């Protein structure tokens, strides 16, 4: 067997690939669900925290900043493991899926809050003053004047961060979730051949490549009309 044949036999073994393709497809569907739930919950919570922070209530803001810094500092894998293996000691049993979802949601929430907050503070003070001078209240100014501008500014960094954290769904395989990587790893173990990993990589590309392209499209779509 030549080196090239050994390589193709290891990573592009058609028989192994065909055998484990259904498992990878299942993992694909599960990863999509996990990613969607993380994105929806993480972004919503991040926006909520940023808006709450805009009210400028000192003790609340300290709490928000502490929470956000905590989840930005901890590696996502550590959070997943803590939730999955730690919480049962406190009588709370989470499935691997829920533990992974919660952990990555909290991480995305933290980073999204910082990005939304940066967007809110980047809107010039004059915008607040102009709106308030016409009689708009604080919440109205935030909703109609500041947030629409802040959200546009945040879309590029938010898209990048969301993609980065959503790829962390692969970490769920550590707590026995049969996501793409989990299914691929299982396939490798059973077949003694790494070809399922190739399938997994392809699955990740199919999943995230459109997301990256979509992010690019959103960026141009939300650019100012100049």
């Amino acid at each position, binding site marked *: 067997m030549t080196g090239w044949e050994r390589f193709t036999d290891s990573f592009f073994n058609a028989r192994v690939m065909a055998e484990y393709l259904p498992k990878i497809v299942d993992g694909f569907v599960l990863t999509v669900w996990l990613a969607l739930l993380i994105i929806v919950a993480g972004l919503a919570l991040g926006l909520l925290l940023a808006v709450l922070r805009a009210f400028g209530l000192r003790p609340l803001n300290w709490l928000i900043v502490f929470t956000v810094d905590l989840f930005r500092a901890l590696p996502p894998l550590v959070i997943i493991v803590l939730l999955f293996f730690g919480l049962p000691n406190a009588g709370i049993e989470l499935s691997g899926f829920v533990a992974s979802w919660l952990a990555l949601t909290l991480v995305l929430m933290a980073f999204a809050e910082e990005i939304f907050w940066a967007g809110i503070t980047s809107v010039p003070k004059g915008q607040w003053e102009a709106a308030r001078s016409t009689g708009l209240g604080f919440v109205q100014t935030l909703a109609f004047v500041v947030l629409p*501008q802040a959200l546009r500014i945040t879309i590029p960094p938010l898209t990048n961060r969301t993609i980065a954290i959503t790829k962390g769904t692969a970490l769920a395989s550590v707590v026995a979730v049969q996501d793409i990587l989990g299914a691929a790893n299982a396939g490798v173990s059973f077949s003694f051949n790494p070809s399922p990993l190739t399938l997994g990589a392809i699955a990740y590309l199919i999943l995230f490549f459109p997301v990256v392209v979509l992010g690019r499209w959103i960026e141009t779509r939300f650019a100012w009309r100049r």
Partner: protein
Amino acid sequence: MSPAPIVDARAIHKHFGHLHVLRGVDLQVAEKELVFLIGPSGSGKSTLLRCLNRLEEPSAGSVTVDGIDMLDPRTDINKARQRIGMVFQSFNLYPHMTALGNVALALRKVQGLPRADAEAKAQAALERVHLADRADHYPAQLSGGQQQRVAIARAIALEPRVMLFDEPTSALDPELVGGVLAVMRELREDGMTMVVVSHEMGFARAAADRVVFMADGLIVETGPPGEIFANPQHERTRAFISQIERH
């Protein structure tokens, strides 16, 4: 001056940390009067203006506008501010809305007009500043002078009793100043009460009823433009006027 001024600010003090920016300022403005605030930068004229609609909270003193105590915590400040239009040096138009949207926002969200009514009113306000044909333009598609006129339309659409202008032409290229001043002059002719912080001395001469000269957080001298410019009483005023005239 008429017995009941529409703007009545008394003994206004403002501290920014250690800075004592306003040190006991009184300003009364009669209905339909155009008062010009002049003075060197840092004299507190913009701060005084911003105290009138409580964009800046005075540290002490009282402000009454159109009979409403602006500093009373029970005053509905958002309601009171609709009677006081404000125009800013940097226009501060909302970049994500068209000219029409900028003008219509407060009509819809503050005054609660249905969209169609708000837009009709906004369109009328844009006509008053001669920008009816720019209603669907975004701020970035307008010149500085046009943006400032949209900002004026945004303020007058709410039918305020008083208009505050904070250096409305300072950020404009010289050739665009004229259009903004023309609109301000028309407002004046329509009987709008106006308080203007500006360095446009020619406009002050031609249009102001009264010029107030401020320095170091105090009103140094006040009088009709003819007197202040031709025959200033105080040394500080003389020095400032001669400096301005040289340019």
